[in-house]
Each structure stands twice: as structure tokens, then as C-alpha cells.
């Protein structure tokens, strides 16, 4: 789909540029209901890109738009603070509020709802992520997988326009990871928003994403469907970033 048409249809549109200190030359879009995996090696600028979308990092030059609303436009001097950007952000470390229960973590993100509706909505969200019965547990008393689910419930609580997942499966064991992958696929049936997943795991990206966007040294190199990219990487840098078997030899 042409970028111009996607702009008309809404979704997330990101263009970031700066020479340093972290070089960025990023451009991609993510449609409503689409899961785009931002894939690259460690230090390739994936997390910085995600943080720029959320307003936690301020690139020198760039534009971030979501559903027609401009969140960042450096040319116009517009840079909305994170709390005014409707994003759901799942951090790699989950970053749960350690002094609050699982329920409290979700309630904290429901500030947009009337006070008397927050508890019920938080319980619904914890049920959605299969954590019914764990409401009163603090993060320290939850397993890694359960903490990740709380982080997802909290990210969804503010009814975000876009969901940002920063390597959310990296801290759990393989069986838990497979389970969480299935749950993310289920979640996508009920949450039709753009989802940007940052990962360095090609198999994970290929299994979960509608499209992959390969990033290297802060530069987005190629975007396309997983099968297309894996079959025909545009150049050697893409092949290395995707860890394709022939990349080292070519």
C-alpha cells in the first residue's frame, strides 16, 4: 500500500532523523490492526525508535502521527509529552509499579475513566490477560509471564491508539514465551490498533508479525511481509539483521 493512502486511512506513521548521538533514519507506517515487527540486532536503534513514538526520546528531526493526530513534528516545534500520547507501552523489564498490586497497576492507568468504573474495568483487563485471581498480588509475587501480562493489561488500560511492545518476551522461558505468543495473537482479535513489536528474534517476528521492518544502525532498510523478506532480503545488511544462513558468506 502506498504511504500516501495509508496516511488517509489512519494508523501510525513514523519518520525520524538525526545524525547523532544515536543515528536515526527511520520511516515506517503501521495500519490499524496490523502488527509490525521492528527487527534488528542489539544496538540497532529499535528501542530508541519505540521510545521516540512514546515521547520518551526526543529525536532532532522527525514526525510521528497517529490516526491523523500529530504527536511529534519537529519542524512545527510540536512534541507532545508521553502522558498526552495515547500509547500503550510494554517495557522489556515490564516496569510495573512495585508498590502496587496487579490491580493497582492497571487502575493507575485508568485515570481517564470515572473513579467508580476503574476497579471493574481493571478486573476485566486482568481477566482478558488470564490473570483472574491474581489481582491482589504485588509484582514481586508474580512470575515473569504473569508480570508481562500485567504490563499488557496496564498498557491496554488507557485505551491506546497504538500498542508498543519492547522485547516483551525476552525475560521468560520458552514454554511461557509460546503461551504468551498465543495470547498476543488472541489479543489482536479484540484490540484492533497498530501494534509495533521490537524484537531481535527473527522466528518470533516471523510468527507474530504481519510485516517486518528491518532496522540497522538506526536506519530502516526494508519493510515487507515476513516470507517476502526472508526469501528476498534487499541487501546484505538486511540478510545479516535477519540472521539468514547465507548472509555471512555473501
Amino acid at each position: 500500500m502506498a504511504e500516501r493512502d495509508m496516511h488517509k486511512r489512519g494508523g501510525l506513521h513514523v519518520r525520524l532523523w538525526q545524525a547523532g548521538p544515536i543515528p536515526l533514519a527511520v520511516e515506517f507506517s503501521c495500519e490499524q490492526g496490523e502488527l509490525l515487527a521492528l527487527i534488528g540486532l542489539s544496538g540497532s536503534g529499535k528501542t530508541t525508535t519505540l521510545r521516540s513514538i512514546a515521547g520518551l526520546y526526543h529525536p532532532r528531526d522527525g514526525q510521528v502521527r497517529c490516526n491523523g493526530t500529530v504527536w511529534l513534528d519537529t519542524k512545527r516545534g510540536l512534541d507532545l509529552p508521553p502522558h498526552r500520547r495515547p500509547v500503550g507501552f510494554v517495557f522489556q523489564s515490564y516496569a510495573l509499579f512495585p508498590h502496587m498490586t496487579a490491580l493497582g497497576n492497571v487502575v493507575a492507568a485508568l485515570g481517564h475513566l470515572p473513579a467508580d468504573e476503574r476497579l471493574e474495568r481493571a478486573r476485566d483487563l486482568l481477566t482478558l490477560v488470564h490473570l483472574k485471581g491474581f489481582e491482589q498480588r504485588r509484582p514481586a509475587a508474580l512470575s515473569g509471564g504473569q508480570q508481562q501480562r500485567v504490563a499488557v493489561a496496564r498498557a491496554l488500560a488507557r485505551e491506546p491508539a497504538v500498542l508498543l511492545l519492547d522485547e516483551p518476551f525476552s525475560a521468560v522461558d520458552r514454554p511461557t514465551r509460546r503461551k504468551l505468543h498465543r495470547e498476543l495473537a488472541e489479543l489482536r482479535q479484540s484490540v484492533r490498533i497498530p501494534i509495533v513489536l521490537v524484537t531481535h528474534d527473527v522466528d518470533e517476528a516471523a510468527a507474530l508479525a504481519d510485516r517486518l521492518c528491518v532496522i540497522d544502525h538506526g536506519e530502516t532498510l526494508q519493510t515487507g511481509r515476513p516470507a517476502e523478506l526472508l526469501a528476498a532480503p534487499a541487501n546484505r545488511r538486511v540478510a545479516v539483521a535477519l540472521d539468514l544462513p547465507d548472509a555471512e558468506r555473501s
Partner: protein
Amino acid sequence: MDWSALTLSLRLGALTILILLPLGVIVGRLLAFRQFRGKGFAQAVLALPLVLPPTVLGYYLLVAFGGSSPLGEGWQALVGHSLVFSFEGLLLASVIVNVPFAFQPMQRGFEAIPPDVREAAACSGLPPWRVFWMIDLPLAWPGIVTGLILAFAHTLGEFGVVLMVGGSIPGETKTIAIAIYDRVQAFDNHAAGVMSATLLLLSFAALGVTYILSSRIGRRHG
């Protein structure tokens, strides 16, 4: 036991930490989360009372509060009595002397909050004042309380600065530390012993609570 001196010391300690609480939270949080030019210099200035001999600090405060200084003159004109050798002067000196005792644990308390937790709060739609109220304060409170306890305990035991700035006016500037010194000078060892034991117990209790709270900071994110 000089009850008047003990009451005055407790009042001085309570008012000192009441003033240092908001100041320490604001400055401690600023130093913990913000990078700015001259931050190292600012931190060195705030830590000075830790290393300066109390008599040196007391001397400078005496000069700064004296009738010929702008502050002393202004105070005299406004209130009608001098700032030195008054309870107000003693309180101001006590606040200044206790800045590092209160600010540093508070700063450490805020620094112990993982940055991504605060970022997650902002990404959860919490504006800065709610992040402060819901995340910063509850997570930094062991550091805040530790700072207040240390400042309070240090106020009870402060001698050099009190003597320089306040003298020893009963009911006005004669604290329990000064009273102990007076009793020893008068060979009243019993009274000096009782008051010393009282200070010892108060200081021990304060330090005990401080260590318990410090271990809580460590455990919270361990």
C-alpha cells in the same frame, strides 16, 4: 533534667524537619532526576555543612545573621529584635546545618526509583504531578523519612553552631546539648548523665529506624 531545654530541642527539631521536608523533596528530586550545568557545584555547596567544623559554620552564620548584615538588618527592621541569639535565628541556622543530613537520603531515595518505572507511569497517562504523587513519593519515602530522622537527631545533638548563633538563653536558645555542657561545668553530673542518656536513647532509636528504612530501599528493588 532540664525539661525546658529538652522541650526547646524537640521543638527546634520538629520545626527544622517541617521546613526541610518540602525543601528536601523538591531539591532531592531535582538532583536525582535532572542533569544541569553546575550540578556538581550545587551538590558540593549543599554538602558543605557535613565537613565544615561546627564553629566555622557557626561563625559564618553569626556574621550572616548579625545586625550589620543585610539579612540581620532586614530581620531587625521587620520583627523588631535581632536574628542572632533568638529562637528564629537558631531555627534558620539549624535548617542550614541540616541540609545535607536531610537532602542526601532524600536524593538517594528518588535515585533508587528505576527510570523505566517513572517512564511507564507517564506512558500510562499520568501527568507529572500524579507521577510525583503516585510513584515518586511512595517509592522514595524510606529515603525521605530517613532524611527527616537524621536531621531531627542531628538537631538534638548540635552544639557548636547552637552556641555560636544562639548562645545559651534559657527557653529561647538553650538546647539540651547546651544544658548538658552547663551541668558538667556546674559539676552536676547526675543531671548531665540523665540528659546524656536521654539523647543517647533518642539518637539510637533514630539510627535504628534509619537503618531499617535503608534496608527497605535495598529490598524494594532487589
